[in-house]
């Protein structure tokens, strides 16, 4: 009975997002219609959360089988893993939708607005389908749809040549990734005789090692491309920044997580762990991803690009956890594997919260100042206090500071590394503890990066007219931001809220795993530390009594202007200097006029990062294909006699083939 009702909930969800919202928006351009559509999306979000809870409780897992209506089995089901990601999708969608309502109103004409909302709804739907799919067919349909719809959302914002190029790269890489993902599913076919998840899972253990290794690698590449692992990240810093901010929030916050979902689903659920080397491969790639991601992020001045690179970094952290878990699994230590998996999944959830918060914050900033260039911002905290507070929470979370949610997951990851020293294997014993250093470096750099971000955007003096005259964001936008911020804080101080379910989930995925003791201890200690920090803070705050405004110290000069302030570029200079090898900067100083070197009227200085994955890794590959295409094209000479010759040659070679067939 209850199962039936949750199934009905499923249908309602699909119908609302997939049919009702687009139809309403296409049919009517009235304000009321749009409100109704938004309300439907929100309702669907809540319904999804409810379903996720049901799914997690297990005994009445929602299931919807549409196979009777589709050419290949298409069914959706919410098991524990799906439930967790469904919760993630829906929980983030709600505040983003609330934020997006005023945002789209302010930014788009009526026609584009309706299209945007329709695609927005489909985008959410596709992600729900991906995380709840119970057959390979359903998964792939959702997966492709997700890419397409998000590309559409980016293109609605504008279609200049550069944007087109970026979207093109996005689509192309996603398509190649999707091919790898499809291959993952299909590789099971000879053993599972069907793409039903149950059948795949059942066949996973009995497959030859070679195929398992190939599936693992295909999954790593396919989902890695979607997640943005370096060097497959190329599309990410291109596509995310150019989307409208709420869409960036969805893309960075949720869409990347579907890749994590897919990877976990395949490696843990279907394969039950990869080959012995899988953990090392994932760890190395993840470490590189995390480090380079954050280094690139620091060097960025465009807020949204910075956030996109930071997504790359966080994906690196998530995969560090997953790699550790695989390593534990390979050495037969399910408890450690559970700890690392919980860490990775927790970070997945956290990143969904704070990255969507930050992208929404960027949206609020661009809405108020018409710029997301950090060098042109500044002083926003006084002008947009609530937005600033929410973004500050996001920055603290993403920097992995205690009392905020990002810390908890990083802490768990640290502890899983440390637990690695207890493994029997010497290689793992060395590698895992050393990873602490990598993650610490990533964490330290992330903190630096977000000091810079918040500091140069919100603090100090405004450095442009836009920032000078910025106004607080409208109510809906603030509401979305505050909701997400509250989520970060809640999970940061009471991580047990999510940890306990996650441990259950990990136990379901990793048979034989107990409850990692670390998950209990962190849940207990964090509220205490919070109490101490806040208590002490409150106590000392009592000392503060009077204050008086006084001009900032300017070494005795009449005053400071915003030009004298530290900008984003300058702030990151020391780190860029130290890591010059990573960036390979190309510096250019131009003095005007050129003939009077000692009395320049203006000096312009430009420093460009030249590390280009596109040029080094992708271009040659593309060029080979293109040149091959041109060569093949030359075969199509236009001369009919040559064409006839081809036919004869084909015939002759087939006859020769036939001759040797016997």
């Amino acid at each position, binding site marked *: 009975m209850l199962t039936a009702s949750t199934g009905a909930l499923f249908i309602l969800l699909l119908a609302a997002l997939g049919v009702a919202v687009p139809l309403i928006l296409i049919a009517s351009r009235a304000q009321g219609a749009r409100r109704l559509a938004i309300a439907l999306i929100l309702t669907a979000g809540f319904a999804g959360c409810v379903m996720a809870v049901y799914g997690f409780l297990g005994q009445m897992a929602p299931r919807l089988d549409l196979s009777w209506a589709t050419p290949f089995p298409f069914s959706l089901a919410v098991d524990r893993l799906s439930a967790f990601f469904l919760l993630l999708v829906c929980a983030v969608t709600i505040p983003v939708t609330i934020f997006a309502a005023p945002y789209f109103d302010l930014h788009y004409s009526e026609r584009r607005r309706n299209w945007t909302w329709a695609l927005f709804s489909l985008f959410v739907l596709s992600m729900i389908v991906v995380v709840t799919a119970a057959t390979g067919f359903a998964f792939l349909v959702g997966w492709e749809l997700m890419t397409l719809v998000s590309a559409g959302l980016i293109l609605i914002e504008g279609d200049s040549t550069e944007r087109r190029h970026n979207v093109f790269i996005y689509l192309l890489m996603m398509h190649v990734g999707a091919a790898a993902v499809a291959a993952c599913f299909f590789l099971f076919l000879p053993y599972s005789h069907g793409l039903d998840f149950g059948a795949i899972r059942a066949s996973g253990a009995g497959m030859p090692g070679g195929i398992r290794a190939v599936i693992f690698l295909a999954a790593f590449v396919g989902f890695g491309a979607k997640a943005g692992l370096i060097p497959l990240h190329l599309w990410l810093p291109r596509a995310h920044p150019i989307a409208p901010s709420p869409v960036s929030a969805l893309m960075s916050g949720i869409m990347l997580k579907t890749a994590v979902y897919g990877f976990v689903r395949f490696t843990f659920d279907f394969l039950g762990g990869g080959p012995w080397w899988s953990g090392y491969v994932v760890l190395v790639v993840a470490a590189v991803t995390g480090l380079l991601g954050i280094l690139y992020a620091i060097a960025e001045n465009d807020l949204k690009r910075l956030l996109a690179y930071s997504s790359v970094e966080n994906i690196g952290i998530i995969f560090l956890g997953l790699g550790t878990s695989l390593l534990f699994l390979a050495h037969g230590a399910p408890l450690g594997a559970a700890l690392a998996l919980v860490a990775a999944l927790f970070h997945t959830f956290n990143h969904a919260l704070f990255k969507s918060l930050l992208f929404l914050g960027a949206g609020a900033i661009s809405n108020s100042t018409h710029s997301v260039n950090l060098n042109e911002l500044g002083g926003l905290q006084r002008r947009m206090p609530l937005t600033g507070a929410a973004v500050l929470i996001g920055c603290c979370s993403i920097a992995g500071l205690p009392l905020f949610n990002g810390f908890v997951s990083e802490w768990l990851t640290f502890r899983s590394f440390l637990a690695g020293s207890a493994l029997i294997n010497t290689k793992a014993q060395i590698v895992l503890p050393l990873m602490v250093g990598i993650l610490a470096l990533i964490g330290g750099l992330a903190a630096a990066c977000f000091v810079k971000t918040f500091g140069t955007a919100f603090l100090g003096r405004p450095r442009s007219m836009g920032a000078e005259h910025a106004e607080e964001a409208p109510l809906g936008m603030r509401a979305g931001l505050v909701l997400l911020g509250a989520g970060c804080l809640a999970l940061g101080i009471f991580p047990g809220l999510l940890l306990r379910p996650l441990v259950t989930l990990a136990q379901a995925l990793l048979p034989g795993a107990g409850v990692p003791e670390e998950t209990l201890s962190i849940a207990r200690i964090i509220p205490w530390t919070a109490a101490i920090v806040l208590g002490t803070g409150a106590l000392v705050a009592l000392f503060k009594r009077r204050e008086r405004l006084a001009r900032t110290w300017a070494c005795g000069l009449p005053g400071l202007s915003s030009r004298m302030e530290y900008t984003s570029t300058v702030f990151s200079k020391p780190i860029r200097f130290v890591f010059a090898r990573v960036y390979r900067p190309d510096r250019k100083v131009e003095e005007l006029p050129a003939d009077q070197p000692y009395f320049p009227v203006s000096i312009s200085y430009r420093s460009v990062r030249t590390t280009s994955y596109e040029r080094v890794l992708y271009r040659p590959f593309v060029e080979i294909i293109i040149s091959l295409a041109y060569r093949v094209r030359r075969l199509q000479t236009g001369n009919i*006699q040559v064409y*006839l010759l081809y036919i004869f040659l084909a015939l002759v070679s087939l006859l020769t083939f036939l001759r040797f067939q016997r």
Partner: protein
Amino acid sequence: MGLVGIATEKILSSFSVFLFLTILLLAVARRISTSVLLFGLQSAIIAAEVFATAFQEKLPEAYIVGALVFAIKVVAIPRAFFLLVKRLKTVRDVKASTTPTQSVFIAAAIIYLSYAAVHSYGGAVHVPDDPLAAAIALILTGAFLMVSRKKALMQMLGLLVLENGIFLAALITTFGMPLVIEIGIFFDILMGLLLMGIFTFRISDTFEHLDVSKLRKLRG
């Protein structure tokens, strides 16, 4: 076994030699009209072959086929070709991309290859080697003419030679296909030639030449 019977025997045993001769001559022919004449000759030999087979195997249907071959390939098509050449006012050179010497060598190689092919593939067919080799040689020659002669008319002619080869192969291996099918095939050939004729007019109208190797605007 009267006189007709002896003639039949002779035709069946020696026609392949004549066919090889036409092949070699086609290779060196420089004028379209010569080639057309050679084609007519070739078709006549084949027609004779059809009649001989009909007589020997007592296939009444085959007489009709033979008559069709004679009417279409020996009479109608060459006439049509001459008409075309006249109406198109084209230079009568075949515009070969190989010299006559090369052509002859290639033709000889084709004949050799045909025998080789018959020896390696023909084991299953239990028919005399020579006629089958001739059929294959005709097919290959047709192909060779189409590839090496630049005039549109010569391509048509090459196609016809190729078709002759196929027809011959069918004849000697199976004594021809069912009559309805044969008639259909002839109809197709006629229609095809008609169309190609139309197109040669269009080519000469549009491009003011008939050199198909210069039709290279569409490529890539």
